[in-house]
């Protein structure tokens, strides 16, 4: 029988895993924030970058924004299902979130393919260096998030470690949050 209790009460009143994830996300803010701050500094120095930004594939960026926002919805619904003890539904929703990650990477792959085929690489100029750095770093985080989601979904399908659904979801929402800022920075600010 499944019961929903806090098995390890902590001095903070929150599960340790959740506190740890918040600390981890704070460090991630510093990583992405530092990279974005560098981009902004150079963007203000080089107003001509707007021409390069106009060449990014905004349709692909828009599709990926819809995909990530929708996958975030699935992640929070999975958390909601896990809190109600509906472990199979939670697992299904986590796999749907994972599918969102697959779709995101496919669109990103098509985008990279078109750009590289057009002769644009990270070595082209500083704008494209930042573009590939920021989107590549983000895509790496998507892959890490998908791995976590798959591991948690496997356990959730068997009713194990349902508390981890929320933790994996927090990370996934953060990946979504980063994209919310990258999309206008790289695609819409032309």
């Amino acid at each position, binding site marked *: *029988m*499944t*019961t*929903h*209790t*806090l*098995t*390890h009460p902590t001095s*903070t*009143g*929150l*599960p340790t895993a*959740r506190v740890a994830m*918040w600390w981890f*996300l*704070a*460090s*991630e*803010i*510093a990583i992405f*924030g*530092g990279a*974005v*701050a560098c981009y*902004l*500094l*150079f963007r*203000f*120095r080089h107003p001509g970058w707007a021409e390069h930004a106009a060449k990014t594939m905004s349709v692909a960026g*828009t599709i990926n924004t*819809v995909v990530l*926002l*929708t996958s*975030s*919805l699935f*992640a*929070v*619904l999975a958390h*909601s299902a*896990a*809190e109600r*003890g509906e472990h199979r539904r939670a697992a299904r929703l986590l796999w749907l979130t994972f599918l969102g990650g697959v779709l995101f990477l496919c669109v990103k792959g098509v985008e990279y393919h078109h750009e590289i085929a057009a002769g644009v690489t990270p070595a082209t100029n500083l704008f494209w260096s930042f573009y590939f750095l920021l989107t590549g770093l983000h895509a790496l985080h998507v892959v890490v998030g998908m791995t976590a989601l798959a591991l948690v979904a496997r356990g959730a399908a068997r*009713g*194990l*470690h*349902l508390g*981890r659904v*929320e933790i994996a*979801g*927090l990370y996934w*929402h*953060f990946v*979504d*949050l980063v994209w*919310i*800022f990258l*999309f*206008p920075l790289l695609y*819409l*600010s032309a």
Partner: protein
Amino acid sequence: MHQEIDQQAPHAPSDRHYVITWAWLMSALGVSLLIGALAGGAVTVALIFGIAVAKAALVAGRFMHLSAEPRWVLAILLGGVLAVGAFYIGVAPDVVWGFGRVAP
């Protein structure tokens, strides 16, 4: 079998609440695309980034339940934001305006 679920969690909104939040996020995306397509200039950029901040607040507050967490959790995250802000302010004069650059 015991699961590591936090019964003390103050957040237990319905699934409908999450779907409505998602609809708001989609609408905000639509508005920012529309603004980007129709107009140009600094005001447009400010509006687009304002909408991005609003979307981020929706995701953090409603999907990540940050609004229901104790304030010290917010302080942890603000620590990261402040570190980035300090870095930006410290480096901006050199990078953007070229202060301290030695002439060749």
